[in-house]
């Protein structure tokens, strides 16, 4: 038996004679292998329309998603504003060295940006992740369909506003006081609630590094808590009413039903969403930071993308800036792949 298991798979064990003989299908397999490319070609010719349909999409992604990756080579080269990336001189890892261990203000800024990226998205996750779940649980409590639709329509709305509109509103509502105008109305509210001092409000919350993270996280919740609850709400309404009835017969109150019926049912959704969230920890929405920060708040607000934007697009240190983002994005990619692998192992659910 052991010998049978070990025998090559193109041989079949013949019980009657006790010997091996060739698998008749093997010839076909050999044939396919020998003429593999001819076979591929004939398949493509037969279905050529299908492949033609693919072309525009492939070209678009090639030109504007993959060619930039080629430009990434610039991070190994001496930056030059005139020469294309292919003709620039190789400088090895000097850009990376300069960022990571260089004794310059730029290196300090890079480390600060990396730390801020982690901290901002970590806070965003800690406070922003549970909110949609809570909102979905609340939606579930509302029995009247009309009332629920109204709530849903209103709370999804901020998601459809552009980052520019959202940040402009934030800027206006917490603006500093000037000679001719008072501070913004939200600042005023916070002052009257004694959450911030008058001086802080008057000098502008957005000019105070201590408040940037709070502004970022709270505006993120305002923007996404309603819309992101869709997924959880779908999981909750999929729970069969009999589960609740069974729990009620067993004497479960509202909290007990929450704990033993609702939460277990949405746990898999929550896990998947959490893993996705961890995976995209470093892909911070730089547009929002870029529109909210200013020179006063670089200390807490500057993230890697905005750092690259400042040095690479507004400044001329293109090589250094792309090296910075390359590190950020490679770590980010490893997080996504890691998260996806864990999710596949843990719940048999792959995100991609």
């Amino acid at each position: 038996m052991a010998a049978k298991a070990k025998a090559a798979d193109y041989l079949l064990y013949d019980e009657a004679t006790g010997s091996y003989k060739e698998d008749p299908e093997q010839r076909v397999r050999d044939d396919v292998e020998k003429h593999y490319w001819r076979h591929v070609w004939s398949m493509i010719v037969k279905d050529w329309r299908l492949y033609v349909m693919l072309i525009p999409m492939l070209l678009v992604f090639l030109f504007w998603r993959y060619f930039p990756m080629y430009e990434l080579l610039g991070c190994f080269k001496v930056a030059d504003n005139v020469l294309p990336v292919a003709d620039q001189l190789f400088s090895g890892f000097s850009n990376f060295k300069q960022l990571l261990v260089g004794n310059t203000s730029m290196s300090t800024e890079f480390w600060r940006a990396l730390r801020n990226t982690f901290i901002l998205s970590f806070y965003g996750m800690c406070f922003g992740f549970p909110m949609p779940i809570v909102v979905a649980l609340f939606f579930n409590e509302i029995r009247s369909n009309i009332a629920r639709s109204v709530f849903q329509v209103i709370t999804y709305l901020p998601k459809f506003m552009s980052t520019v509109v959202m940040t402009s509103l934030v800027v206006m509502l917490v603006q500093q006081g000037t000679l001719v105008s008072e501070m913004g109305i939200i600042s005023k509210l916070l002052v009257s609630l004694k959450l911030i001092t008058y001086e802080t409000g008057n000098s502008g919350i957005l000019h105070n590094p201590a408040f940037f993270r709070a502004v970022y996280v709270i505006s993120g919740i305002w923007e996404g808590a309603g819309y992101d609850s869709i997924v959880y709400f779908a999981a909750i309404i999929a729970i069969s009413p009999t589960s609740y009835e069974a729990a009620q017969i067993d004497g479960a109150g509202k909290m007990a039903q929450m704990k033993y019926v609702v939460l277990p049912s949405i746990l898999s959704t929550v896990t998947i969403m959490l893993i996705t969230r961890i995976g995209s920890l470093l892909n911070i929405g730089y547009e929002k930071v870029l529109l909210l920060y200013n020179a006063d708040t670089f200390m807490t607000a500057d993230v890697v993308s905005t750092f690259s934007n400042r040095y690479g697009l507004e400044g001329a240190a293109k090589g250094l800036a792309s090296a910075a983002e390359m590190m950020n994005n490679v770590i980010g990619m490893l997080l996504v792949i890691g998260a996806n692998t864990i999710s596949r192992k843990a719940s048999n659910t792959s995100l991609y």
Partner: protein
Amino acid sequence: MKRKTETSELIFRIISYTLLTIFAVSCLYPFVFAISAAISGAHEVDYNQIVLLPKSVQFDAFRNMFSNNMFWNAYTNTFFLTIFGTIWAMLYSILGAYALSKKRLLFRKALNFFLVFTMWFSAGIVPQYLNYLATKTVFNSVGIMDDKWLVVIAMGMQAMNIVLLRNAFEEVPSEIEEAAIVDGATEFQVLTTVYIPMSRSTIATVALFFAISRWNGYFWARQMISNGYEKPLQVFIRELLEQYQDPEFINGWNEVYSADSIIYALIVCSIVPILIIYPFIQKYFAKGVNEGGVKS
């Protein structure tokens, strides 16, 4: 026993209603405030005397803005980018997603990876910028001088949307397709007469995703569009806001309405089209998110 359950349920329901109401009000308030502030008098806006409803109503902020040609330019440009950007993106997305949804497509796995990899890894701002600059040169050399076309064609591709479409096409039962082929339909006819009608809701969702992201697009439009007359609305708003934060701008301001009002008026104008179509589209969004978000 029964009674106890009812009380706890009632308390829970009251809490839900209260907190949701607070949340909904906080979602809506900034917009209502923006409208009120846009049509209130200068002193009232600058000294926070409006809380909800407008006071000493004036329409000069709106009138001033409507008489500004740059505003109408920006508005038209945004419509242009949204309409053509969505059409172009839907065109290659539907064709590509249809091909990818076919089991008989060779190298299907590799092609999917080609697409999905762009969700995992992006080259970053600087390489993307250099790439767009190079594209701009190429476009100019073939006679496309409008940067608007660069934004329409080269920006806004989203692998996730193509994955959504592909998943929807995979759900279409193959019997219908076979029937169409027996009737002599070509590949393209199968797509237009069977697949597109059968996945109408996903297609609507994806088109709306594209359209919204186009309408709201800011960063690359600002980087790549050099001609002031081609700037979209979002760039226009932001530039005005930056200009407004400049102290000199405030000193030269008039008395009828606050400088804030003109920003609020712009914000209101930029969200009105979304607010108009929003009630009709929001059910599609909910559906699209649930259908395609996670595929097991």
